[in-house]
């Protein structure tokens, strides 16, 4: 008898183990909740918050749930967003299409009471992006603290490497390019061999959705901060909907602002490269002085930024969570400089090292047009300013030619890249590898 029952247990186990390990799309089943913006309930340095305004906080939460859905599994798409996303947002996930039209984001079909299971952008995001970028796109996923630079926080609607003007929302093509090719020199990998073009379309839709949701959240907090907690009309649903529409309209408008150089690239002749060099070193009437930030040798060590060793000490010199203590230990002047050299997300900035020889990395892409965009319209959120139309387009192309030639001709800036000395170790450059530990 005992032998028998034990035998059953053994055989049972044989069936159970594969059954447990074989669950496939269960990743869609668990509950996920959007992470609230800190400013909703806490004092955040340098921005308005809703501390001590519990009723307005509640109104923001309700407005967000009404406009975008309560949680990532119940996505709602504001009507205005339809034109911005593929098939009116049908690819976001957990969606329902009736008669070819996206009706709403309910999981349940009101007629058949059946659940629609479609992972879409939400499913792909959850699998591939969430662990860095976080549930609501705040760049706060579980692996984020271990990365340098930090993953992008979408909630400002700002993205660094775009084809649209400085500060404008990115074009969809920009986001697709970033997902497809990754960002060289950062932890953003290239996904073109992991995801099909259709899947990239879906996940980009979802990123835009999260971005718009986050921007709306910030705008609602700003609106609430200047409103009276006791005013029953403050932050009405109509106001909230208007705010969301404003955010969406801005995205749609910026799609058509893609910058295309009006003149063809100047051929990369010796003269053009040398003209670019003069511009870089600030020896022309325009006084560009790229070298002030990028350094006289273009190694990303210009004097207007924190010295490299201080930077490395703070960013890589110990536990990431104790970074603030390391900043506090700096001399007052250095601390002041540190505070000035942060990007719009509050992360420390480093000008690119453009002179690393064959290992030179161009984060935003290495095509002439990519470099043109970086110089002509700057880097959104960082301190690389737009130089067009400050200087004319021909000169932008001269600079492009110089920047592309420099890694192969370090003598352009007077010195070979590693003059007999030790090779620059990884991590001591503008774009060090992931802070592995």
């Amino acid at each position: 008898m005992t032998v028998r029952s034990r035998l059953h247990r053994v055989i049972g186990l044989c069936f159970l183990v594969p059954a447990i390990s074989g669950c496939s799309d269960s990743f869609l089943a668990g509950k996920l909740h959007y992470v609230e913006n800190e400013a909703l309930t806490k004092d955040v340095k340098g921005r308005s918050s809703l501390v001590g305004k519990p009723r307005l906080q509640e109104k923001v939460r309700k407005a967000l749930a009404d406009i975008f859905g309560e949680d990532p599994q119940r996505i709602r798409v504001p009507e205005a967003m339809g034109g911005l996303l593929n098939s009116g947002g049908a690819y976001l996930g957990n969606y329902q299409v009736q008669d070819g039209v996206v009706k709403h984001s309910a999981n349940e079909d009101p007629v058949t009471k059946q659940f629609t299971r479609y992972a879409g952008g939400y499913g792909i995001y959850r699998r591939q992006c969430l662990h860095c970028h976080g549930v609501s796109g705040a760049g706060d996923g579980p692996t984020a603290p271990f990365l340098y630079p930090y993953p992008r926080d979408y909630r400002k609607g700002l993205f660094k490497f775009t084809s649209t003007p400085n500060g404008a929302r990115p074009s969809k093509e920009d986001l697709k390019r970033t997902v497809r090719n990754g960002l060289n020199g950062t932890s953003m990998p290239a996904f073109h061999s992991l995801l099909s073009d259709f899947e990239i379309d879906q996940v980009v839709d979802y990123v835009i959705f999260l971005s718009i949701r986050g921007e709306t959240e910030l705008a609602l907090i700003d609106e609430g901060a200047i409103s009276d907690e006791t005013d029953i009309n403050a932050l009405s649903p109509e106001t909230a909907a208007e705010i969301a529409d404003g955010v969406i309209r801005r995205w749609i408008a910026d799609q058509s602002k893609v910058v295309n150089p009006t003149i063809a690239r100047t051929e990369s002749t010796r003269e053009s490269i040398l003209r670019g060099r003069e511009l870089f070193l600030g020896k022309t009437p325009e006084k560009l002085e790229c070298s002030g930030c990028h350094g006289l040798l273009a190694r990303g060590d210009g004097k207007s930024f924190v010295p490299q060793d201080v930077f490395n000490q703070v960013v890589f010199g110990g536990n990431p969570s104790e970074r603030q203590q390391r900043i506090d230990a700096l001399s007052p002047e250095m601390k002041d400089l540190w505070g000035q050299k942060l990007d719009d997300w509050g992360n420390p900035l480093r000008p690119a090292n453009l002179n690393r020889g064959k290992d030179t990395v161009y984060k935003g892409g290495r095509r002439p047009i990519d470099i043109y965009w970086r110089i002509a319209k700057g880097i959104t959120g960082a301190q690389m300013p737009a130089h067009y139309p400050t200087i004319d387009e021909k000169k932008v192309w001269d600079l492009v030619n110089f920047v592309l030639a420099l890694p192969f001709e370090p003598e352009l800036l007077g010195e070979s890249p590693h003059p007999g000395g030790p090779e620059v170790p990884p991590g001591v450059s503008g774009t060090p590898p992931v802070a592995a530990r």
Partner: protein
Amino acid sequence: MRYWSVVFALAAIFSVGAFVYAPLSGDWWLPNPSGDMHHSVSSFGREIDSLFVIILVITGVVFIGTQVVLVWEAYRFADRVDDAGRPVRQARYFHGSQRLEVIWTIIPAAILVFIALYQMGTWANIKFRSAAPKVQPTAEVTARQFQWIFRYPGPDRKLYTPDDLYTVNDFHFVKDRMTLINLRSSDVIHSFFLPHMRIKQDAVPGMIIPVWFDSDTAGHFELVCAELCGWGHYKMRGNVTVHASDEEFAKWQADLLAEQNRSQLSMATDNQGR
């Protein structure tokens, strides 16, 4: 207790059955081009597969033999008691048997020495630097958390010049050509693994390691990282394209170069990323 032997027997039969069935299933056997189960696409791959089959046969024979003995003994002698309820045969303990130990050391040792000698030529052909083909490296491959970065010599056929071509997770070479790459890592140890070509080589920071292989089949294959190199390890997958001819490869390079030199968006609807 004797029925336990049935469980052991079933487990052994299942295992052997799985191995017998495996070559009949495209999903279970070694990674091969779809619809062609017994064919590795590279010359080294076929050598390695035959080594693999030899090891499988040796271990299979040993496994079946030991399982038969184990099950039979367990079935025959378990639970046998006399009328008084005592075991029919008392278990007997003895300390050491030189003859037995010599036998069970010599047999596996001989098998191991045989395998070691038998595979040596293949190993030398695939791994010894002296055996590296005297050809231009097709690319420099840098592993990085978490992707493969390829750098090809451009039209001037020299690496580290302004016309170099760059791709990420996208590897191209030509059919029926012994192809050489230089493998580097910029952070941790990764492992360059071409499953269809049975090529696996660690990428070690600070080292430049030559790796060579070929393919007799044009088409699309896969590159993965075979080293657990961090949380994004599973993302280190790349597409491998084997071109049918040098012309096709040159055409791909020309397209890549044109895209890499792009300085204008020709049309508003232009796909900027490709």
